[in-house]
């Protein structure tokens, strides 16, 4: 896999297409699977992990599946390349930072990735732009069937797919939808939404998964229950609640532009102005400012840039992407000035295009 050309593109999850793409960034299905004849990753020796990797890599490469998957040996990859894959949501932070034989098979269009020797031997994910959980599930189900023809999974009739952590046992399925909810944050209604979701057993997390705070007003909503419900039931429960959240966000956006138009316009313009002029910029501040700009574009308050352009800036200003694009490793101060310079230049270019 050519990491340099990968870095140039937006990837699937920021493609900004698909249903409700102004609010729903992406839909994701993740399946956890394990080989029945090996201990789980945390208990496997380095030698066993190498065996697991070798056998799964061979299976994945021989898989009769479209799109074709390309294998990246993560133990041999540079820390920067691993970080790029994390920022693109193709590899979990845990897998990138762990040790020993491990890898990921990625489809060129980045819709599919199969992590090997994560917490479970196999973590496959399908990610789709916009609100498209059913499409993602169909792909994941098909991929799982194909892999299962050759790989004996750890499975019990009573408890389903056996996973290292009991919170994943059963279907091993995590369905999640990533939403951009700036108006609910601005109008301080987001807490209310969280509480409602928690009551129906859904989890809310920030952009980069467990433990990360919601930077850029991106929120991931996912199921917690994996045992006692079928895959379709789990997906339906999430799919049914998302339109309500979308409606709340739209309502909040409407109220903002009706009752607080000058304030919102000021916020959006200031954010855009800062991005165009600042000399130092942390990735945290960039995310927050871009979030306001993204809201401004969706509300037609600014037309200097389109959604695709904003999404591209979200990914390209992430620390590892920035260093890849600059072609060198940078310390944190250097990154902050390079990031600011990159944003100034890119916004000028994008403005010229519109």
């Amino acid at each position, binding site marked *: 896999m050519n990491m340099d050309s990968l870095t140039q593109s937006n990837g699937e999850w920021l493609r900004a297409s698909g249903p409700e793409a102004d609010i729903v960034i992406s839909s994701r299905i993740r399946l956890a699977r394990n080989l029945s004849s090996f201990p*789980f990753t*945390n*208990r496997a020796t380095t030698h*066993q992990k190498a065996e697991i990797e070798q056998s799964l890599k061979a299976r994945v490469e021989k898989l009769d599946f479209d799109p074709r998957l390309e294998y990246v040996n993560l133990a041999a990859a540079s820390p920067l390349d691993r970080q790029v894959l994390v920022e693109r949501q193709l590899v979990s932070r845990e897998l990138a930072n762990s040790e020993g034989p491990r890898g990921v098979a990625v489809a060129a269009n980045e819709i599919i990735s199969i992590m090997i020797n994560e917490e479970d031997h196999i973590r496959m994910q399908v990610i789709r732009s916009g609100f498209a959980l059913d499409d993602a599930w169909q792909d994941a189900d098909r991929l*799982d069937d194909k892999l299962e*023809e050759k790989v004996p999974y750890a499975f019990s009739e009573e*408890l*389903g797919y056996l996973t290292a952590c009991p919170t994943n046992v*059963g279907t091993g399925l995590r369905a999640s939808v990533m939403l951009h909810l700036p108006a609910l944050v601005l109008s301080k209604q987001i807490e209310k939404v969280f509480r409602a979701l928690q009551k129906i057993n859904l989890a809310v997390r920030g952009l980069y998964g467990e433990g990360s705070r919601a930077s850029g007003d991106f929120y991931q909503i996912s199921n917690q229950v994996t*045992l006692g419900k079928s895959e379709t039931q789990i997906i339906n429960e999430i799919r049914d609640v998302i339109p309500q959240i979308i409606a709340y966000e739209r309502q909040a956006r409407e109220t903002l532009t009706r009752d607080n138009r000058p304030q919102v316009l000021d916020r959006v313009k200031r954010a855009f102005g800062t991005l165009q002029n600042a000399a130092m910029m942390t990735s945290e501040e960039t995310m927050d400012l871009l979030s306001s700009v993204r809201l401004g574009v969706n509300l037609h308050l600014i037309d200097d840039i389109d959604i695709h352009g904003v999404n591209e800036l979200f990914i390209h200003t992430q620390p590892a992407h920035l260093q890849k694009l600059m072609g060198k490793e940078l310390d944190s101060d250097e990154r902050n000035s390079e990031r600011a310079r990159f944003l100034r230049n890119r916004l000028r270019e994008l403005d010229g295009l519109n």
Partner: protein
Amino acid sequence: MKCQTCDETATVHMTEIVNGKKREKHYCQDCARKQQLLKQQDLNLTAILQSVIGQNVGEATKELAQLTCPTCGIKYMEFKAAGRCGCPDDYVAFREPLMPLLERIHRGRRHVGKIPVHALQHAAAQTVLLDLRQQLRNAVEREAYEDAARLRDLIRQKEHADEHG
């Protein structure tokens, strides 16, 4: 049972005896921590656990402390501390304490989703392999290389039979 200060499920139960009067208290994890019942765990985990958790549960804890998966050798207490199982067989070995945990997490106790056809056909052979791999690991650890070589050949043979059988 619900926590006596909030609506969460109570997981910490204690019996307090003050001036010969017995009083039972039930808290969820969070409230117990607020009451500083759990905070001292860091100091002496086993001792505090025994005193905080009710007496009958205390007995069970002793039994649980000895529970070990025969396949991968992980102790139930190791699983509890890390929250991760060691191998698929743990779900059998730790079934008794695991089922209430699964019910609490999932509010369900039976899989109703997809069934992998291939896995079921090969389940028996795979269990044998899992066991052989642990034996191999033990043999290597005690430097019994002749045993290890024999086990390795056996594993290869079984893998081959399973793939082509």
